[in-house]
């Protein structure tokens, strides 16, 4: 009996494995309405890529720069990493400071670069930094700045130096003197603890509006940074993926929900683009975004197109919001959908997609056409 059960279990696992290969790109938008959801496959692939880059980097440095390798005790950090369970290793590779560190360090590991004195110095300092990142990652699990019900950390100005270095020009974090002034000013006008409460409520509303999106959000977003003095509404970038920046511009919970969903959409694409760039040989052509009138290159246009599809689906699901909010949500939905209809032929006409990028676009196009059909009487 036991043997038979094991055989059945093995067959199921084998089938699932085959399913993974067959379905990763098959009709995948990686949005939370995919059937089945693809986020676990996506993130499972991405962390393996990061791990391979990390271990490859380690081997390369140990062979090419043995003295530097020994002096920096880099091997201690690698040994600690390898002793972690695969779940913990995945978590570590998703920790934004590590991701930033890896991206910067691994690119200077080729011979020519390392022979450059200044880059060698940078490499040395980089190797020494990993110990700090590992220690702070462990400590972060016990930090009191976690958003309730999640493992997402909330910060204001006091962020990891690697994040602070990577964020400009989106935002320049203040130096020590100005930081304390800004913290005091922000506490006087918009208390950190109050923003934590607001954010918790906004996430809870997302949870009730679209449970899958809430679950997915928690997988992709690791750090939220609240910057009341920032000039943007919200912001993120591939170079510091896993982190989203929010200003104090959102004047209602519904606005904040939109910002959170918007930035979560970017995070999905950053991860997909670690596997396939989706966009290749981008032309220098700029586009006027139909939603805001802002000028963006094709990369920015495609990101916006993808995110606004996600947002239309979010606003569709707001039927349990207060009546006035629902009305605003539907108005916003229509604004966004009109923009999607305008954007569709622009994006379709491009030659800038990889094969996977084109496939993804075709699935998104079908979705926009369905939405257009659903709301044709209101467009």
């Amino acid at each position, binding site marked *: 009996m036991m043997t038979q059960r094991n055989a059945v279990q093995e067959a199921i696992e084998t089938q699932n494995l*085959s399913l993974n*290969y*067959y379905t*990763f*790109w098959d009709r995948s938008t990686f949005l939370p309405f995919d059937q089945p959801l693809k986020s676990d*496959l*996506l993130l499972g*692939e991405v962390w*393996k*890529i*990061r*791990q*391979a*880059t990390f*271990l*490859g*980097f380690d*081997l*390369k440095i140990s*062979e*090419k720069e043995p003295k530097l390798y020994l002096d920096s005790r880099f091997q201690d950090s690698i040994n600690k990493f*390898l002793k972690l369970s*695969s779940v913990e290793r995945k978590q570590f590779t998703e920790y934004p400071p590590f991701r930033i560190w890896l*991206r910067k360090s*691994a*690119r200077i590991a*080729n*011979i020519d670069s390392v022979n450059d004195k200044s880059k060698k110095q940078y490499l040395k300092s980089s190797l020494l930094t990993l110990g700090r990142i590992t220690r702070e990652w462990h400590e972060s699990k016990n930090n009191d700045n976690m958003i309730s019900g999640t493992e997402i950390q909330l910060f204001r100005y006091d962020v990891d130096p690697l994040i602070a270095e990577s964020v400009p020009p989106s935002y320049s974090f203040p130096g020590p003197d100005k930081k304390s002034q800004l913290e005091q000013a922000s506490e006087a006008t918009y208390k950190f603890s109050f923003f934590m409460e607001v954010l918790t409520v906004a996430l809870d509303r997302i949870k009730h509006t679209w449970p899958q999106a809430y679950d997915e959000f928690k997988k992709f977003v690791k750090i939220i940074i609240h910057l009341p003095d920032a000039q943007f509404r919200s912001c*993120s*970038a*591939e*170079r510091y993926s896993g982190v989203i920046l929010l200003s104090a511009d959102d004047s209602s919970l519904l606005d904040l929900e939109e910002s959170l969903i918007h930035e979560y959409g*970017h995070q999905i694409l*950053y991860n997909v*683009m*670690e*596997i*396939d*760039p*989706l*966009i*290749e040989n*981008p032309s220098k052509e700029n586009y006027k975004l139909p939603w805001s009138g802002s000028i963006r290159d094709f*990369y*920015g246009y495609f*990101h916006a197109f993808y995110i606004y599809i996600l947002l239309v689906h979010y606003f569709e699901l707001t039927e349990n919001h207060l009546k006035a909010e629902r009305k605003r949500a539907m108005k916003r939905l229509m604004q966004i959908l009109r923009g999607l209809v305008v954007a569709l032929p622009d994006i379709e006409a491009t030659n800038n997609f*990889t*094969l*996977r990028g084109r496939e993804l676009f075709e699935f998104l196009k079908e979705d926009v056409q369905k939405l257009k059909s659903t709301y044709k009487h209101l467009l």
Partner: protein
Amino acid sequence: MTKKERSLTKKIHASPAKEESSPNDESSTPTNPSSSEYSSQEIRTSGIKLTPQTVIEASLGLKGIDVDDEIILVDLLADYYFRLNSTATFIWQLVLQTITLEEISQQLSQKFHLPSDKASEVVSGFVDELIKKGLVVPSTVTES
């Protein structure tokens, strides 16, 4: 937002079933950086004719790391790292034994219950990919 930079790690996929495609199936992505320097015809083949008696050897400076049922290949002279999926890992372990492609195909056929012609096709495709990327060198070949 900034432009996407190319990943430093590429996956090399050897598939026992032709229609399978892994998340990072390079063979179906002719635009990857490592192949973009080739002409469209050369993207698909290394230009080296492989025979059943061909023996291949890992290139000088190539190191492997075994982790989580995968092998990560590190070419100390190149900028990229390569991940081998489980089938490719199985073949790679045989490559390291410096046996002929025919013997590798036989073992693959037994392991995955594949017809021998299918196993040969998988091995040739995988080895050709390795040659293209400069990760192995054929030691008994006929130039095409």
